């Protein structure tokens, strides 16, 4: 139950912030990428101010999380796909103005057409998964 409330609060704040920042609107993201309004940099800076301090401070103040779980100390490693994936993501982001989080939040602001983009993302993630894990066998 505490877990459920935490996820609803965390996801809720994340989505609320995405809507408030305007990033749930592809047009606002595109206006950044076309270098007409650099607001996206402020969004990232404000979010980073919170997480950079928080990710460091929390494990120093407590052994475990408020729910008694271990803190992740994940630092994303450099992998063969890191840069090629970023190139492909950048092309898609520049074409559509959509990234995964903003697209999910965009449903909440009533942006029906974003479902087309999310469907595309699931197909893209599926294709990447098949390439990475080998063609999945439908039979057991």
């Amino acid at each position: 139950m505490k877990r459920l409330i935490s996820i609803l609060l965390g996801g809720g704040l994340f989505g609320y912030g995405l809507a408030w920042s305007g990033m749930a609107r592809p047009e606002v993201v595109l206006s950044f990428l076309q270098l007409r309004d650099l607001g996206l940099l402020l969004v990232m800076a404000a979010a980073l101010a919170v997480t950079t301090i928080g990710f460091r401070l929390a494990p120093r103040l407590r052994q475990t999380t408020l729910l008694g779980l271990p803190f992740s100390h994940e630092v994303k490693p450099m992998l063969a796909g890191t840069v090629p994936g970023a190139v492909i993501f950048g092309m898609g982001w520049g074409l559509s103005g959509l990234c995964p989080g903003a697209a999910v939040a965009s449903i909440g602001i009533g942006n029906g057409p974003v479902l087309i983009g999310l469907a595309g993302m699931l197909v893209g993630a599926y294709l990447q998964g098949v390439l990475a894990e080998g063609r999945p066998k439908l039979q057991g």
Partner: protein
Amino acid sequence: MGFPFPNGVTSYLYGGLFLGLGLMVMYLTLGVKAGASSVLSSTLTYVTPLKAERSSRDWRLLFALAMVLGAWLYAATHQSFFVTAVGWWRLALGGLLVGFGTRLSSGCTSGHGICGVASFSRASLLAVAVFMAVAIVTARVVLLLGVTP
């Protein structure tokens, strides 16, 4: 106010602050750095034999549903509902590339851009520099080709 912030700075700063607080709630409770793009892979494990992110699929899907609710709450309380004019083929093709690219790169704007950079990951810093540069060039080219908005 003109360039670089023709629409002011307030909504960007408060939006980013709340977005960061949402990620902090996830870190302070579940202990996870909750980048968004993993939900694509994790949700696929419900309906395909793929295995990536399977163990986190329940909380990630719930997290995404909560994001929809949070965004709805903002739009409903600020009369801020919105339907994009970006064409369907750009959403479809762009989405496909975003889904493939973020999973290949193991991160997106939130996973690399916020969680990864906040963890001082060199891979994330490089990924952010690359996807920002490529996206800016792509968006400018699309604009120059006369595709609007």
